[in-house]
């Protein structure tokens, strides 16, 4: 048994992505570009599934170390938009796009960007918690392991501990790190997924309705966490929940039927929406 597993590993040894430095693939922009306030710049983005266009000419600047919220009714293209930011849509058959998405001034869809290394810089948390059915420890260790981000076991232990602490889960699981992740509650599972994403130290965390499958208590924990995280990294949060957008967002984009209707700072966009549609949505008349 063990014998053939090893065989498989030899046979399937991945082309080692982590040995090349980030700079080699044109993603290490530190110092080579003036550190501007804007981390992600989306300009003129159109997106399609086959013939169906779902995003129309989106232009949007996402600021460093802040929470940018994308809100809008279900089906308006929020997930599609957020998933273009770390190239998760590359895997969707029939997906195509045009327009430009820059991370630190670098086009993330240009040929010299490795989508694998991009995902180290831009992490993601999904709507439904999707912990791996392995131990809590191994969930968090997964990213550091595949990218060989540590030399000694103790370093990995420290990464796991720090990530769990940052995700506000450490105290609840520190005594059962070897337990299966599926034994956690829904809210804990989602925080584990956040810890798992944090373990590779991303600069950006994309969250696609991370609390929509959770109870109110877990939701407010996640919201606190998001605000906390924005001190160290950039958070892009998708939600269809306006109260949530208002509570955690620094800047809020309102998306409707694939178009960016309004984009502005948080209290302002709710109190004095400039657009008729935004006003209707904010007041709950648009669904």
């Amino acid at each position, binding site marked *: 048994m063990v014998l053939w597993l090893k065989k*498989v590993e030899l046979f399937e*040894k991945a082309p080692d992505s982590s040995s090349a430095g980030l700079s080699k693939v044109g993603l290490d922009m530190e110092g080579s570009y003036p550190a501007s306030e804007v981390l992600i710049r989306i300009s003129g983005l159109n997106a399609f599934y086959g013939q169906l266009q779902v995003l129309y000419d989106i232009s949007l600047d996402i600021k460093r170390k802040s929470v940018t919220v994308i809100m809008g009714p279900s089906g308006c293209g929020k997930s599609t938009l957020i998933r273009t930011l770390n190239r998760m849509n590359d895997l969707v058959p029939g997906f195509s796009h045009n327009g430009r998405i820059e991370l630190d001034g670098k086009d993330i869809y240009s040929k010299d960007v490795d989508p694998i290394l991009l995902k180290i810089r831009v992490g993601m948390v999904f709507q439904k918690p999707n912990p*791996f059915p392995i131990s809590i420890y191994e969930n968090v260790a997964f990213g550091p392991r595949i990218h060989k981000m540590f030399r000694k076991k103790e370093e990995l232990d420290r990464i796991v501990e720090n990530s769990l602490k940052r995700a506000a889960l450490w105290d609840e699981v520190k005594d059962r790190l070897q337990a*299966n992740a599926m034994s956690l509650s829904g809210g804990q599972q989602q925080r584990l997924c956040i810890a*798992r994403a944090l373990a*590779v130290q991303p600069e950006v965390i994309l969250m696609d309705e991370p609390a929509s499958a959770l109870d109110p208590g877990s939701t407010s924990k996640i919201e606190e966490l998001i605000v906390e995280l924005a001190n160290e990294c950039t958070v892009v949060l998708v939600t269809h929940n306006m109260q949530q957008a208002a509570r955690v967002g620094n800047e809020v984009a309102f998306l409707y039927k694939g178009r960016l209707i309004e984009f502005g700072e948080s209290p302002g966009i709710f109190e004095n929406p400039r657009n008729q549609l935004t006003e209707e949505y904010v007041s709950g008349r648009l669904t």
Partner: protein
Amino acid sequence: MMPEETETVQQTRAPFPWRDKRIARNNRIRKLKWRIIAFLAVLSVIVVLYPLLDMLYLFAYKGLTLISLARLTQTTTGGTGVGNAGLANAIAGSALIIGMSSLFAVPLGVLSGIYLAEFAGERDRYAGMVRFVSDVLAGVPSIILGYAGFFVFVLYFGWGFSAVAASLTLAILMLPYILRTTDVALRKVPDSIREGAYALGSSKTDMINRLNLRIALPGIVTGILLSISISVGETAPLLYTASFSNYLPSALFHSPVGYLTYVVWTYSQLPFAQANDLAYLAAFLLMLIVVLINLVARVGMRRFMKI
């Protein structure tokens, strides 16, 4: 607010007393149905289990009274039954054939299963063909596989009755089980988990090696053990490819090999008590192996799943 609501409920119910009756009657029928089904279920368990336990008891009793160091270390001496001493040649031969066929079938089956589940596209013609052939193969009577093995390995390749010919034939028999369980177990890994791995920057090979195979392992191991316990019990393909030998296996080619199922099959029909005893003992050992494999599978899996 609250009292009002209960009132409305009562109001709507009051004019329909027949409805409550129907509900009660339906409930009685449901309970009766349940009792009948439960009774049938228990009955069928007894019908299935009784002969099985009876057989287990018979062979365990016979086996335990017959087992001795001599019968395990000496070899059979031939069909006459005179001087039939022990099963050493059959035990060693069975172990050799099963071990070698697993050596062929497990890596091949698991790797093809990985290919089918992870690398073949939805409309991959080749993968469809492999699945079809493997399903057909699983349904082919083993005696036909034995006959094919005889022609190909024994005659055409000229290996004679031998451990290699027998092992390759059994490996072909095991392959479809291993391949399909690996395929199915890997395909059960949900897309949400695959997406989670990709979002962490995992390559496909990393995802398969570190995650999918791990998640699918219980299923894969179950398939392997199932295929091994099936091949442990095979006689027909071995008759054609291993023949039988009263000596301990000494060479891989051109050298007939003994095995336990042959002893059960042949020696139980001989009019010699000594031979009949060996047949009982061989049957007991086969049963023991199958039970052990299943126990190991269960206990091992339970421990594995906890992690």
